[in-house]
C-alpha cells in the first residue's frame, strides 16, 4: 500500500474556500485595525460561522481553515474559529443534558465558550492551579480563585474551568482536579480583558475572578477528581490546531517573502543572489516538514487514535518553524519588513511556542512518552 499525502477531497475544497474567505475579509487594513485596537472581530466571527467554517463534524476542514486563515492573519483567523474553544471536552466527557444546554448553542453560533485552566501561579504545571471547588450542603459547589490569559475570557458565555476539588495526595498532584461549566453571568464571576499583548491582539484574552460562585452539581463535567485527564486529552486535540496556526503563520510569512522578492524583479532583483535562493529553500523546507508532521498527527487524531508523541512533535516543530520563518524573513526584508504586515506576523508567531504547552513541555512529553513506549514500539 502506498502512503497517501493528499488531503481528503472535501478538505481540499475547504482549503480553497477558507483562503478565499480570508483574502476577502482579512484585508491588511482590517487586520491592522483590530490589531491596533485590540478588539474582537465579532462581525468576522459571524460571517465565518455562516459560511460553515466552525463545523466540528469536519475536523480536516477546520484544520485547513485554521491554517489558511492564519496564513492571511493569525489574530483574525483564530478569532473566526475560536468561538467553540474547549467544546471537545464537552463532546468527549459531557453528558447529554450538558451538551444540549451548553454545546448546542455554541455549535449553532449563538454562544461562545472558553477553556479556563491557567492561573497566575501555574501555566505549564496544570496540577499546580489554585482555584478551588468546595462542596456545599445542598450538593452544589462554591468556586473560588482566579485564572489568567484565558482566550475568549471577556466574551464567552460559559467556560469549561479547572479547579481543585480535593487536596492532592502526595506525589499524585494530578488527582483531585475537577472541571465544571461556569457561566459568565453567574453571581460572583467577573472577567476583565487583559490588554497590551505582543500579538494575536484581535483575540480576546482576559483575567477571570470567582468569589463564591455557586456551581450546580449538574455542571460537573465527567467525574469529580478526574479532570487532569480531560485537560490532557483536550490538549492532544488543541495542540494540533495550534500547529496549524503556526503553520499558517510560517506559510503566510513565506508568501510575503516571495511576493517581496518578486516585486524587486527589474529593480534590484534580489533573486539573483544565491543567498536569497538559499533563504527561500531553507524556509520552504522547514515549512514543508512542519506541514507533514501536523497532518500526520491530525490523521491519527481524526481516526480516533491520537498519538501524543506525534502531536507534541508537530506542535513543537510547527511553533518553532513559525518564529524561525518570520525571523529569517524579517531579517532579510529589513525596513520593508518591520513596517509591513510581517511585523504583525513576528508578534503573532511567538505565542505559538507558549500556549497550549510551551515548547519545553512538548519536549518533555515527547521524551517521556517515548521512554514509556520503550524501544521499537
Amino acid at each position: 500500500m502506498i502512503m497517501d499525502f493528499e488531503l481528503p477531497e472535501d478538505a481540499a475544497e475547504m482549503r480553497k474556500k477558507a483562503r478565499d474567505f480570508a483574502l476577502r475579509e482579512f484585508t491588511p487594513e482590517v487586520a491592522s485595525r483590530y490589531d491596533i485596537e485590540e478588539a474582537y472581530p465579532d462581525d468576522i466571527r459571524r460571517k465565518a460561522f455562516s459560511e460553515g467554517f466552525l463545523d466540528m463534524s469536519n475536523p480536516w476542514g477546520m484544520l485547513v481553515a485554521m491554517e489558511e486563515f492564519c496564513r492571511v492573519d493569525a489574530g483574525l483567523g483564530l478569532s473566526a474559529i475560536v468561538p467553540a474553544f474547549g467544546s471537545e471536552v464537552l463532546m468527549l466527557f459531557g453528558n447529554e443534558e450538558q451538551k444540549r444546554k451548553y454545546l448546542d448553542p455554541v455549535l449553532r453560533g449563538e454562544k461562545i465558550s472558553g477553556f479556563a485552566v491557567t492561573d497566575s501561579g501555574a501555566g505549564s504545571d496544570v496540577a499546580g492551579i489554585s482555584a478551588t471547588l468546595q462542596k456545599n450542603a445542598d450538593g452544589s459547589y462554591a468556586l473560588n480563585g482566579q485564572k489568567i490569559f484565558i482566550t475568549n475570557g471577556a466574551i464567552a458565555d460559559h467556560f469549561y474551568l479547572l479547579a481543585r476539588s480535593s487536596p492532592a495526595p502526595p506525589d499524585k498532584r494530578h488527582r483531585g482536579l475537577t472541571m465544571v461549566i461556569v457561566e459568565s453571568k453567574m453571581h460572583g464571576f467577573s472577567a476583565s480583558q487583559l490588554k497590551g499583548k505582543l500579538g494575536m491582539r484581535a483575540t480576546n484574552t482576559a483575567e477571570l475572578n470567582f468569589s463564591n460562585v455557586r456551581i450546580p452539581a449538574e455542571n460537573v463535567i465527567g467525574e469529580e477528581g478526574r479532570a487532569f485527564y480531560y485537560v490532557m486529552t483536550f490538549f492532544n486535540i488543541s495542540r494540533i490546531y495550534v500547529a496549524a496556526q503556526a503553520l499558517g503563520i510560517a506559510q503566510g510569512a513565506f508568501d510575503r517573502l516571495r511576493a517581496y522578492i518578486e516585486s524587486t524583479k527589474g529593480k534590484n532583483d534580489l533573486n539573483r543572489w544565491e543567498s536569497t535562493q538559499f533563504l527561500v529553500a531553507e524556509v520552504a523546507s522547514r515549512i514543508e516538514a512542519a506541514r507533514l508532521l501536523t497532518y500526520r498527527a491530525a490523521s491519527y487524531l481524526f481516526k480516533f487514535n491520537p498519538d501524543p508523541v506525534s502531536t507534541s512533535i508537530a506542535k513543537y516543530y510547527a511553533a518553532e518553524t513559525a518564529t524561525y520563518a518570520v525571523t529569517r524573513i524579517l531579517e532579510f526584508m529589513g525596513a520593508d519588513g518591520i513596517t509591513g504586515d510581517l511585523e504583525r506576523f513576528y508578534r503573532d508567531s511567538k505565542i505559538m511556542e507558549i500556549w497550549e504547552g510551551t515548547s519545553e513541555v512538548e519536549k518533555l512529553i515527547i521524551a517521556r512518552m517515548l521512554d514509556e513506549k520503550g524501544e521499537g514500539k
Partner: protein
Amino acid sequence: MKLTEENRLLLGAAREFAEREVRGISVEIERGGIPPHVLGKMAEMGFLGATAPEQMGGASLDATSYLLLLETLARYSPSLAFYTYMQNTLVVGSLLHFQDNEAARESVSEIASGKRSGTVVLDELVSNTVGNSISIGEGGNAVSGTAEFVIHPGASFILLSHADAQGSSLFRLNGGVRQTGENRKLGFRGLGFGKVTFSASVEESLLIGRKSGQGAISLAAAGGSRAVAAIALGIAEETTERAVAYSRSRRTFGSRLEEYRPVAYSLSSMMAETDVLREYLYSSADMGEKEGLVAKLLVTDAAVRASKLSMQVHGGNGYFEEYQIEKYYRDAMSLEALTGNRNSEMVSLSHHMLGSGSASI
C-alpha cells in the same frame, strides 16, 4: 574590561539618571513618545551632545563612555537610547564633517543644548521596492522629493545628502518638510517613523557643505556600528538579567525555573555570550570599521535571541506589555532594520574578511 575614571563617572551618572528619570516612564515613552522634560534633562546631563566637541557645547565623551551611555539607556528604554544615537552619531556625526561651516557648528550646539532636535534621511534604509527621490532645484538649493522610513520625522530640522558626479552635498532643511505617511513599525515605538515629502524653498534649505566621495550621513552611519551594537548589548543584557531574576522567583512543578537544566543552560550560555560580546565591543571601541561591523552584526543577533529566550522563560507573562519583555523583543528585531540592511552588511563583512572579489554571486 578596564574602565577609566572618566568611564566610571559617566556610567554612574547614566545609571542614576536612568533610574530616576526613565525607569518609571519606559512604557509611557512607547505609547506617547519621549516627554520633553526628559529630553531637557538629557541635555543638562550632556547626553544629547555626548559626542560633540566642548567648544560647541558638547560633552566630548571618549568612545567608550559614549558606548556605555547608550548601553545603559537601552537597558531602560531602547527608544531613548536610539534617540540619543540619532542625535549624536547621525546628526552631530554628519554635521562634524563640516566644522568650518558656521551653520553646522551652530546646529551642533543647538542639538547639545536640547534647543533643537535633528533627524537624517538614511540612504541605508531606502526600501528595496520604493526608492527615495530627492532633487535639488537649479539656480538655488530648493529641495524637493520624498524619502521613505524617516525616523523621528517631527525633528526641528532634517539633514539629507545629495550625491552628484563630483561628490556629495549635505543639506539642512529647516522647513518645507511634511510627513505624508506614518509607518507603524515593529519596535522603537517611542520614536515616530514615516514617509516625508520635501518642498523646501531656497530659504528653508541650507547647503552645509560638499565633500568628495561617500556622503556625510552614510559615513556617520557606517562609523556608528558600535553605537548600534551598544544599544543591542543593553537590550541583550537587560532581557537576560530579567529572565534570570524571573527564573529565580518563578516556581513550576515545585521547583524554581533556574533549577531545570534546559533553563539554566540557556540562560548561562546567553550570559556568557553577552559577556564575551561586551568585552569585544569595548576592547575594539577605538578600532576601525571592520571591528564595528563585526560588533554590530553579532550583538544585534544576540539581542534578538536573548529577547526571545527571555520571553520564553517569562512564558505568558512575557507576552504582555507590563513585564516589558515584549518591548525588548520587538526592539531587538527592529534595531538592525532601522540602522541598515543586513544583506549589504554581510557583503561588507565578506569584503573585509575575504576581499572585494567575494560575495558577488
